[in-house]
């Protein structure tokens, strides 16, 4: 189960005078597909970053699957996120990039290998696993952000 409960989330950036998110409450059921829509600067990214743990709220609470994660560090949340820029690790091969999350989660090596292969086949990146990200074409790089998140099993994405 991975339903997300957000209640009364308030965040003001240091040095800012206005609230980035002003008393936001939201509940997302397990398996639900949710879209945040709004003008620039309305706090969409701030909200996502707080759910991911990259920003800490001033007040309010976030819980995922019934577990309070409001002030939990990002690596303890078992989440995934696609960044606006691709956020790949340019010094490592495609294979390492795809398997990074699994490696961090201490998944056995054969299991990582299997899942990386599966994700690569799905995205037609199979022949490029041993290349560096810099040596992929534009289109191949566009497909890039997916492998990381999808190859491992987050509770919410």
């Amino acid at each position, binding site marked *: 189960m991975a339903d997300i409960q957000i209640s009364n989330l308030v965040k003001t950036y*240091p040095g800012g005078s206005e609230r980035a998110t002003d008393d936001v409450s939201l509940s997302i059921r397990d398996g639900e597909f949710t879209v945040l829509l709004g003008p620039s600067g309305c706090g969409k990214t701030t909200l996502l970053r707080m759910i*991911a*743990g*990259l920003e800490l709220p001033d007040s309010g609470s976030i819980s995922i699957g019934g577990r309070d994660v409001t002030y939990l*560090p*990002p*690596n303890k*949340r078992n*989440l*995934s*996120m696609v*960044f*606006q*820029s*691709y*956020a*790949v*690790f*340019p*010094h*490592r091969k495609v294979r390492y990039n795809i398997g*990074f*999350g699994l490696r*961090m*989660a201490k998944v056995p090596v054969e299991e990582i290998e299997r899942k990386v292969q599966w994700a690569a086949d799905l995205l037609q990146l199979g022949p490029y696993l041993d290349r*560096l*990200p*810099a*040596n992929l074409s534009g289109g191949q*790089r566009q497909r890039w952000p997916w492998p*990381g998140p999808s190859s*491992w099993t987050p509770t919410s994405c």
Partner: protein
Amino acid sequence: MSTTVDTTPIARQKRNRFMLQAACIAVSLFMLVPIYLISLAALSTRESLNEFPLSLLPTNLSVETLNAFLGSTGIFAALGNSLIVGAGTLLLSALIGVPAGYALARFTFPGKDPYQLFLLFTRALPIVVLSVPLARLFLTMDIYDTTYAVILLHTALALPTTILISASVFLSVPVDVEEAARLFGCSPLGAFGRVVLPMALPGLAAASIFTFVMSWNEVLGASILTLDHRTLPAQVLSSLSDSPLAYRFAGGFALVIPSIIFIALMRRYLTNMWGSTIR
């Protein structure tokens, strides 16, 4: 019917390319000729140095001068001291400077700008002004005339550049990749070690060249802070005035070679390691 083709742009391009090559060769010669001459002198026999006109081609090669230099008292010890001091300075300044640079690049804290300015003040003081009080302090602390003393001085001298260079290097590593690593389960230290540090390595290599060469060349502070445990430049300097010409050339040669080797080794990391970078 044939049109006349205006070839002036291509001719200009050719000329510019030629001028660029010529400039590169001139700069290289400016650097290489002294190194060549000193190597030639160090590797020639003592007699051939006094010949006139001096031969500019390696005709009388011998390692006799160099052997005499390396055999003279204190040279090997001084070479060892120089290497210890260089490596120690590199290690200590990286240990303090790299985290400081990271903090400057990633966090905002009160007094950040004055701090960056204040860093440069150590370089504003002449080394003599720094060394004399330090010598007194080291005497009372009982570490005078040790390689530690010189390492401490050189680290203090190298830190401003190490911190400022590594800060700008870390600024060029996108925050996104660090955050992605955190999301995929890295601790803050893990994300730094696995992702940020490898991406920052070329820049940090450049900083380390600065540090090592600075430490290798620094002679004034090292002379003041040591008596029996001199670094190589300090040792050569102290015996320079009353030594034969050949000895001086051999000393110069021995001073140049290790830093050239170090730079050649680090150069590998300077050029971008991953082809082109992704933005």
